[in-house]
């Protein structure tokens, strides 16, 4: 290649405005590109985590009754008796709180009472003896709740003692690290201690919105009757969800004139809704980055085209002096590479600064240098592609331009 950087630099130094502006644009684009890519990747990784649930064949429905004589226990028992015998149903349970939604509760969990030690915020999921089966979540240690252990507190007899609980593996590890959690006592909220009788494979409970601690769930053996509504969770045989859901709604509507199916959730839709914020963020950032990249390429293309127009004679002179067409293309690519390099250096510092700010203020992980490397490579490639057409156009300028008197 018949080029070294010195004359290129001196030419750029004497006409720096356009190149400096493009370098700034490249730097800002790189900083946004890199950090957006890190955020989007983080979001995608989050969304890609397993829920631990059979989202394809599970649905939940809220049943409410506005009549004064409404008895949650007997109404839900009747519904469950029907559902468990309905063809296509694999398991059904009455619960409070629907996994993967904001419908449900949380509680603080600690090895000591709240005032004496640290606690973890965990999803709180009251279930009956078929809760685990309906959730399709296997035990990795201990045992399931027995029918006799299911508490049915009422408004008249609230009974705050829970006694036994099942926790997810994630919560067990968070509480007891490498020790076995089975048989250990834990404190839920301000209540009396409860004994861990089982540990399940991880799954996402309600209320935690797919956050960092989405697998921290504690299951308690309880049918909640204090409200004039209850949630039914139903897992169907593969592919039968739509049919069963339709039949269950038809039955509940027909069985009791006062019963109303408040809402229904399929867990696949719940998962989709749970990640809508992250998904929207990922789409927005990707779009923003794409727009920045396109604007950057347009800027480079514009500067390249401007250079072709304003340097037509100079290019003709170079051709007359022996430059081949590829030498002219190389000249434009080399000049662009210098601008991009300057912009990339500026952009790397800016990206690290923004990354540090995001780490400090939003708790994001530190920016992985790989993002910088890939970002620089992407920008270098796209910017060279952007200048390619003007460079080719410049190379087509005939050498006879040199002898024209303008």
């Amino acid at each position, binding site marked *: 290649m*018949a*080029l*070294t950087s*010195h*004359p290129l630099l*001196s*030419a750029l130094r*004497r*006409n720096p405005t356009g190149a400096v502006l493009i370098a700034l644009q490249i730097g800002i684009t790189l900083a946004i590109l890199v950090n957006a890519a890190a955020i989007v990747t983080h979001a995608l990784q989050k969304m890609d985590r397993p829920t631990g649930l059979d989202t394809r064949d599970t649905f939940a429905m809220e049943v409410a009754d506005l009549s004064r004589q409404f008895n949650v226990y007997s109404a839900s028992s009747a519904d469950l008796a029907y559902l468990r015998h309905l063809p296509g149903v694999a398991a059904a349970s009455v619960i409070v709180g629907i996994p993967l939604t904001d419908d449900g509760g949380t509680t603080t969990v600690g090895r000591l009472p709240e005032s004496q030690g640290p606690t973890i915020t965990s999803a709180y999921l009251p279930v009956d003896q078929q809760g685990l089966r309906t959730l399709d979540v296997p035990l990795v240690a201990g045992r399931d709740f027995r029918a006799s252990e299911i508490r049915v507190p009422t408004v008249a007899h609230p009974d705050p003692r829970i006694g036994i609980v099942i926790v997810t593996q994630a919560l067990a590890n968070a509480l007891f690290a490498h020790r076995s959690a089975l048989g250990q006592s834990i404190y839920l909220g301000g209540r009396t201690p409860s004994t861990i009788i089982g540990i399940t494979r991880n799954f996402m409970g309600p209320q935690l919105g797919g956050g960092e601690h989405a697998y921290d769930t504690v299951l308690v053996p309880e049918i909640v009757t204090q409200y004039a509504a209850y949630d039914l969770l139903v897992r169907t045989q593969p592919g039968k969800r739509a049919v069963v859901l339709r039949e269950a709604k038809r039955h509940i509507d027909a069985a009791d004139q006062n019963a109303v199916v408040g809402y229904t959730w399929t867990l696949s839709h719940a998962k989709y809704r749970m990640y809508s914020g992250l998904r929207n963020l990922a789409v927005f950032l990707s779009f923003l980055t794409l727009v920045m990249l396109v604007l950057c390429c347009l800027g480079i293309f514009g500067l390249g085209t401007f250079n072709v127009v304003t340097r037509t*004679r*100079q290019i003709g*002179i*170079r*051709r*007359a*002096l*022996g*430059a*081949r*067409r590829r*030498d002219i293309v190389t000249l434009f690519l080399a000049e662009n590479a210098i601008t991009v390099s300057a912009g990339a250096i500026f952009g790397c510092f800016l990206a690290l600064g923004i990354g540090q700010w995001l780490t400090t203020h939003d708790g994001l992980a530190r920016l992985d240098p790989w993002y910088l490397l890939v970002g620089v490579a992407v920008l270098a490639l796209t910017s060279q592609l952007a200048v390619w057409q003007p460079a080719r156009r410049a190379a087509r300028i*005939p*050498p*006879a331009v*040199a*002898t024209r*008197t303008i």
Partner: protein
Amino acid sequence: MLEMHNISKIYRTDLIETHALREFSLQVAAGEFIAVSGPSGSGKTTFLNVAGLLETFDSGTYKLDGQDIRGLSDNARSRIRNEKIGFVFQSFNLIPDLDIFDNVDVPLRYRGMKAAERTARIANSLELVGLSSRMRHLPAQLSGGQQQRAAIARAIAGDPALILADEPTGNLDSLMARQIMDLLEKINSMGTTVVLVTHDPELARRAERNIHIIDGLVADTVPASGARRRERQGPAHAESATD
């Protein structure tokens, strides 16, 4: 050095055809200094473009330094321009962003020379034209005459066999013009063939031969009768020429 036989060059648009060169034939020997003159629109610049491989021609044959030019690729033509031809343009055509050193360096870089050799050649050529002390000046910081001398340095740095000078004094005053012509004669005396394209009869008379073009044809060839011819032929010939 330069052999053209029946060269035709036609510029075509949708509406008209312009015959810039018609059956144009010319032979220039190695080491010769010729002038090509003619009125405006006569085909001088087209001749220069064709001779300098800046443009192709439609028919005829053209050999430069024994090499047939017809049908050569763009790359091959670029290489010949770079290695065998030095251009001196009316408006100097220095690259304004580069200083004089880098301007002279341009064709040498395209030849792929090593830095040490380029530096030596640039120093020699700038010394020959008297601009050694101005090598880090930008073209805009030099006078017209100095710029044209820098352009001549650029033309000779690659040691070409042929210098094509297109109205090299057209933008200069008479004193500067004389210095440039002296310089071209000095380069010619060192063995380089010089073809000077000019519309100025005074300048044309300083060449060994004056080719007069009208309407793309060689109208006549006039041997120079002045000092230039006497110098080349030596004192004895000079005396007989004046007898």
